[in-house]
């Protein structure tokens, strides 16, 4: 009899979602789906608003990564004004994004995902969260929380507030770097570096030992990878052009402009999820599956451009790169965690370089103009991947159409494939009609989603306190059995 097992909600992610496991007549995993069950409607209710409000409105999409929307909206605004922000403004925006990526990655690694590998997949679900981590290893938990605080504090020092700052505006930014901010950042950088060094050391040991299995089966499959790259293919987080590579490390498309995104990105819709399914158009749907985010950014780039980060990138590739790509490309989605740590290094080194730049402290930081274009696309690298904002405006600058392509959507196909792979690996035996599926196995299925650090809304369930519900359903939808985790 065909059955469906539902994991609802998926915990320790940002937003609301559920997973269903579909069993065939023999009780084996036939399919698995990651459902995003919330609807926000931002694209519609922005219509009619002045484009100058878009940075303020879209930043409210999320409390974890408001900076990503702020920057994408400001960059789209630059194009509507047809101006180039002054060089200092571009550097300041870069610094803001580096701080944002740092704090978001620290949150993903320490608060949301590390309880799985540090406390163990089999540990008590009630303790398998950041509070359990505090109890088990208070020093590590404290260091992780302070690393996130470092990033958040840089956001506040630049933008005036940690969350939902409106500091980046069409044409540039509002205020320069202050002497006090520079001083604070310089004082706290060594501690932040020490924390990420500790996390890398710890993680690599786990990778050599207990995490090998997960590294092998958590969404390890060939796919395309997409990300921004700078001149010479350097790692990039805000400027640059779009590159696609395949699992063999071959460049599939390069120097693509965000302006032309509709020519290479399609957006499919499925009836069972509110999250769209973007795909690489030339390969069609769903074969055009591609991944974005930390793993993709490290895969598409030639180098990061700072010494420690480049050394970590080399080790990342040497440890996890596939033989088919000559060690150049890492295909396991579990490596998103390692990639996040490498990117934190890149962010800290990037901030260190920028904070020494005197040009950030005075001079022109904002270009002003009237509306000069009716349509524009802006792009930035959010912590979770490439983010596109596309606006159309009327003659008066009022929004007539908005399209937002968020990173989590672009990883949607990959997340679904990851869930199927994990379910088949850990639920390999046929499931009897009355049998219950052990919780640690279901946690691994959830953890497959957590690799991508999906950000489904501005709500967070970091404490892992939400109930996990599993339902066994017959082909006609009748409930056969249910289990509730509190």
């Amino acid at each position, binding site marked *: 009899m065909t059955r469906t097992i539902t994991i609802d909600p998926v915990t320790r992610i940002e937003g609301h979602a559920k997973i269903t496991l579909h069993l065939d007549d023999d009780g084996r995993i036939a399919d698995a789906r990651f459902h995003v069950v919330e609807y926000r409607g931002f694209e519609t209710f922005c219509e*009619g*608003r*002045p484009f*100058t*409000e878009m*940075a*303020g*409105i879209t*930043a*409210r999409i999320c409390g974890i990564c408001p900076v990503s929307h702020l920057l994408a909206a400001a960059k789209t605004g630059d194009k509507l004004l047809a101006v180039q922000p002054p060089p200092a403004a571009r550097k300041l925006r870069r610094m803001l994004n580096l701080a944002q990526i740092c704090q978001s990655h620290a949150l993903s690694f320490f608060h949301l995902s590390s309880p799985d590998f540090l406390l163990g997949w089999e540990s008590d679900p009630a303790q398998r969260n950041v509070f359990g981590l505090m109890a088990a290893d208070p020093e590590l938990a404290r260091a992780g929380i302070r690393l996130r605080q470092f990033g958040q504090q840089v956001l506040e020092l630049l933008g005036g507030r940690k969350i*939902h700052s*409106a500091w980046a*505006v*069409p044409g540039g930014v*509002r205020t320069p770097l202050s002497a006090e901010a520079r001083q604070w950042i310089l004082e706290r950088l060594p501690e932040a570096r020490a924390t990420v060094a500790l996390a890398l050391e710890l993680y690599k040991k786990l990778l050599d030992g207990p995490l090998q299995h997960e590294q092998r089966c958590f969404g390890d499959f060939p796919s395309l990878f997409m990300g921004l790259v700078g001149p010479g293919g350097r790692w990039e987080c805000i400027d640059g052009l779009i590159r696609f590579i395949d699992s063999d490390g071959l460049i599939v498309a390069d120097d693509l402009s965000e302006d032309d995104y509709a020519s290479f990105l399609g957006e499919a819709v499925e009836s069972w999820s509110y999250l769209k399914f973007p795909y690489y158009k030339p390969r069609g749907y769903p074969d055009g599956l591609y991944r974005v985010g930390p793993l993709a950014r490290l895969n598409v780039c030639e180098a990061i451009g700072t010494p420690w980060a480049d050394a970590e990138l080399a080790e990342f590739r040497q440890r996890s790169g596939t033989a088919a790509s000559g060690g150049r490309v890492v295909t396991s989605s579990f490596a998103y965690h390692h990639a996040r740590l490498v990117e934190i290094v890149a962010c800290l080194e990037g901030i260190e370089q920028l904070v020494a730049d005197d040009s950030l402290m005075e001079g022109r930081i904002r270009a*002003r103009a*009237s509306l000069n274009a009716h349509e524009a696309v802006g792009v930035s690298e959010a912590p979770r991947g490439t983010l596109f904002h596309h606006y159309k405006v009327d003659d*008066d*600058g*009022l929004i007539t159409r908005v399209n937002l392509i968020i990173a989590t959507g672009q990883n949607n196909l990959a997340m679904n494939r990851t869930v199927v792979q994990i379910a088949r690996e850990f639920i390999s035996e046929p499931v009897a009609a009355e049998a219950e599926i052990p919780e640690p196995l279901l946690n691994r299925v959830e953890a497959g989603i957590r690799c991508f650090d999906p950000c489904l809304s501005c709500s967070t369930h970091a404490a892992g306190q939400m109930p996990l519900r599993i339902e066994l359903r017959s082909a006609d939808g009748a409930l056969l059995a249910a289990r509730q985790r509190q």
Partner: protein
Amino acid sequence: MSVHTLTVDGEEVAVPAGATLLDAVRAAGAELPTLCHLDGLTPVGACRLCLVELEGSGKLQPACATAAGEGMAVLTQTPQLQAYRRMAVELFFAEGTHVCAFCVANGNCELQDVAVAVGMDHSRFPYQYPQRRVDASHPHFAIDHHRCILCTRCVRVCDEIEGAHVWDVANRGRECTIITGLDEPWGEVQACTSCGKCVDACPTGAIFRKDDTTAEKQTHRERPQLLRDAREKHQWQNQ
């Protein structure tokens, strides 16, 4: 110059003849919330936030539009007045669509300020979410009618100080709205001199400069009085 002596919440105060109760309250060092009042413009008593009680009369009077009289005993903070003021502010919020989070005037908004002053933490009335216009046809300025509280400060400053009378009020009740010209797009009204006084006079984020983004609106609400003093008393700010 003749003087009237009266009391405000028991404090004795003397004001020149012709002064309003609002002048007397301020002279006594007391605070009264206002929205439609702006120094330098003719009072209209529209927002009802500055209502005060005159002891013995039982009637509530708008302090901005009531002349101070000899021997008056003015009460500004009775429980009834406080309840009415809070209710009036709640109704302002429920009537329009005021989303502070991304408003140009966030942090520099008189409606926000009075909400804090009257202790409003939520509105007891259902939000109406009216479908109103955003007119951004002017090259420099725009008006978002969702944020308009019909204080008519723009109407008065344009008429009394600038002398252009671009703004006026149309319709009644729920349909009541501020208009430009003969209800034409602002950008097409030839009388507009683009002076920006309406932007400075607007207490909320309804009228704003088009390149202002979230929380960027800066206003100079003292200017109507400065201009009036310059014109009528030949007193200039830089003298």
